[in-house]
């Protein structure tokens, strides 16, 4: 025991030292070129040019005026042609991933709504085994994380890769194959859960065959990144590439270690379970979400991010600290104390990467807040980035033993999980999809009003969801800690809040239906936009320089 503590302490200090030397070595090389690094996302003449394909023509003009008054500079013909080629190379894989993602979002939302209603209507839909709470709830979780969130994240990543590397996507067929294998895995996994073949481990419910498909599919979807990197035409890897590259490497390994057959047992399995449960957030969804935010915010604003070095510091500290926080899910449990202490310490250290991201993104948007009125992409992503800060700070606080004693085992944790995965990740994905789809399809979003309806429905719904469930969860925890109150008080006190959560969840589901309807209306529309060149991607720029795009 003492041996393991001192070993751990030594390796912790060593690795922390190593981390900072590593970051220093990277930033040293970048001090001279940091400015250059942050401008990789623009073509030479493109800075101060707003790109926002999701906005209406009128709003695009207002947005450009907000970024820089006066006419936008024209992109030169060869850069424009290269951009169009890059976008076309990723259109197919992105469309496949995003279409499946949106379908899973709708299915997952209904499963979530049914689960929510069941928590206060325990005699509703009880006659069928597959509809019981303990099956439909994990079906919801797996549909939204492996179906919606993962495929949305990968679809957006595949679309960003050629743009960030200024080349065409290489190996699209691996992405198609990966997406199909992945989807078969998710369908099989969720069917297994509904039929009663869950493994019983939260976040890892898929039985081995389905899990294996996710490892294989996930690995295949990462292949185009590796192939495209070898063809890159940029000197610097933009920070989004770091995030996406690491995430695509991490996920198959994480999931393979967690599902290794015959290795895990008893309490060790519990520590592994939460090592995985938190790493899938920290090393898969968070980097994919941040990669998108780091690209789309500066792109819409035509402004490089505030501090490029800070963004790299954020990346490496996230990788180090976030990967070790899982033990905070077992505070008070029968696990070694040093492990929990380690996780609590790393949870607190998470304020470093969170601060790096928060400062960077806030400073980039600062002075351009009115752009949010014109840009649907920004509206979703900036809100999502704010929720990231909120969720992360809340998460660090929840890891403190005193707070955790109240919130552990309660609905407060569920509200927190949704703040991260929905408030942050899903919001960023919504915004990214609004940006990407007009480029993928060469068509505009048919109805600006539907984008607004989606935004306000999910914002109103999620506000009700989060605030209600957080209050209910806290009261539940307080009642449970009070030995004088019978346990049933902790159940009764949550009921009105569980009902409000169902209301919020219903509004969110409605918003998703609007989003999905709009998405498929656009995908199946035969109408091309009135301005011909939009078909190839660049309404504003093409107008300035129509010859190149046509």
């Amino acid at each position, binding site marked *: *025991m003492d041996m393991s503590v001192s070993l751990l302490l030594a*390796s*912790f200090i060593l690795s922390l030292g*190593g981390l900072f030397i*590593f970051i220093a070595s990277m930033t040293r090389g970048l001090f001279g070129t940091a400015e250059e690094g942050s401008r990789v996302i623009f073509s030479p003449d493109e800075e101060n040019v707003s790109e926002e394909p999701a906005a209406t023509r009128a709003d695009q003009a207002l947005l450009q005026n907000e970024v820089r008054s006066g006419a936008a500079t024209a992109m030169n013909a060869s850069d424009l042609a290269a951009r169009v080629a890059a976008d076309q190379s990723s259109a197919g894989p992105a469309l496949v991933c995003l279409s499946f993602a949106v379908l899973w979002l709708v299915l997952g939302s209904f499963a979530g709504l049914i689960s929510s209603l069941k*928590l206060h209507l*325990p*005699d509703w839909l*009880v*006659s*069928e085994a597959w509809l*019981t*709470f*303990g*099956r439909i709830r*994990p079906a919801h979780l797996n549909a939204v994380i492996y179906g919606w969130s993962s495929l949305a994240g990968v679809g957006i990543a595949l679309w960003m890769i050629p743009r960030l590397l200024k080349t065409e996507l290489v190996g699209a067929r691996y992405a198609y194959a990966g997406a199909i294998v992945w989807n078969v895995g998710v369908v099989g996994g969720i069917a297994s859960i509904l039929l009663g*073949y*869950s*493994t*019983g*481990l*939260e976040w890892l419910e898929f039985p081995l065959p389905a899990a294996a498909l996710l490892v294989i599919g996930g690995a295949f979807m990462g292949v185009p990144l590796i192939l495209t*990197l070898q063809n890159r035409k940029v000197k610097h*890897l933009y920070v989004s590439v770091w995030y996406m*590259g690491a995430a695509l490497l991490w996920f198959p*390994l*994480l999931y393979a270690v967690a599902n290794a057959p015959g290795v*895990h*047992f*008893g*309490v*060790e*399995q*519990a*520590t*592994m379970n939460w*090592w995985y449960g938190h*790493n899938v957030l920290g090393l898969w969804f968070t980097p994919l979400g941040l990669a998108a935010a780091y690209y789309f915010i500066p792109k819409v604003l035509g402004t490089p991010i505030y501090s490029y070095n800070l963004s790299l510091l954020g990346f*490496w500290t996230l990788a180090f600290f976030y*990967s070790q926080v899982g*033990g905070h*899910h*077992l505070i008070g*449990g*029968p*696990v*070694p*104390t040093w*492990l929990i202490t380690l*996780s609590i310490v790393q949870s607190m250290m998470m304020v470093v990467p969170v601060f790096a991201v928060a400062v960077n993104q806030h400073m980039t948007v600062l002075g351009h807040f009115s752009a949010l009125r014109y840009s649907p992409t920004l509206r979703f992503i900036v809100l999502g980035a704010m929720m990231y800060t909120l969720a992360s700070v809340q998460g660090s606080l929840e890891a403190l033993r005193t707070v955790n*004693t109240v919130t552990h*085992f*309660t*609905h407060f944790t569920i509200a927190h999980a949704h703040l991260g995965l929905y408030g942050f990740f899903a919001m960023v994905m919504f915004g990214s999809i609004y940006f990407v789809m007009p480029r993928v399809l060469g068509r505009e979003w048919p109805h600006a009003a539907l984008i607004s309806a989606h935004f306000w429905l999910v914002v109103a719904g999620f506000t009700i969801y989060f605030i209600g469930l957080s209050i209910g969860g806290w009261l539940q925890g307080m009642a*449970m800690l*009070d*030995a004088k109150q019978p346990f*049933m008080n*902790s*159940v009764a006190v949550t009921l009105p809040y569980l009902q409000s959560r169902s209301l919020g969840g219903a509004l969110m589901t409605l918003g998703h239906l609007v989003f999905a309807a709009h998405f498929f209306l656009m995908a199946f529309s035969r109408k091309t936009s009135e301005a011909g060149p939009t078909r190839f991607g660049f309404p504003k720029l093409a107008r300035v320089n129509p010859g190149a795009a046509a």
Partner: protein
Amino acid sequence: MSRHIDEFKLVVGSMAMLGIAVSALVVVPHMLLSTVRPPAALKPYTEQQLRGREVYVANGCVYCHSQQPRDPAQAPDFSRGWGRPSVAADYAYDKPHLLGTMRTGPDLFNIGVRQPSVDWHLGHLYQPRAYTEGSTMPAFPFLFNEHPGPPAAGEKAINLPPQYAKPGVTVVASKEAEDLAAYLLSLDHSYPVLPADRGSR
């Protein structure tokens, strides 16, 4: 290599980070906990209890019930009758682990001690609200068979409290329900533990 120095840093750096995390949270616990032996008083599950455990897993009981009483210094779990704080050795036969992260319902680590009646468990699974007022636990009628008339020979009908009983209808527990009840009754960790059982806690 120099052209791809960034890729090199990315792969080596990200794998090193993951490696450290796997060591600290998976490999070291695996090494430390693999030496923990089951306490003498803890009996391995019987075949029926193991089948019941599978029913518990299949129907997701873990999403509302924990199996890990906390220390009295942290929370009043003991005074609620949930038992002493659990130790690593208590889970020696548990695969998959069912520690749980929610207490929408009470902790079940010692439910076999608190509710030792198989009739209570079967009736409660059929209709929780017949036994606990205000319960939000789902009813599990799909684990039971119903038929009109009196029970046939060899059939064991469950006895529901009068206001929930269905006149003229016999409710019989399925094999799955009986297995699940057997597993719940087996959840008894009231034996004392020695410091050696605590692993590296």
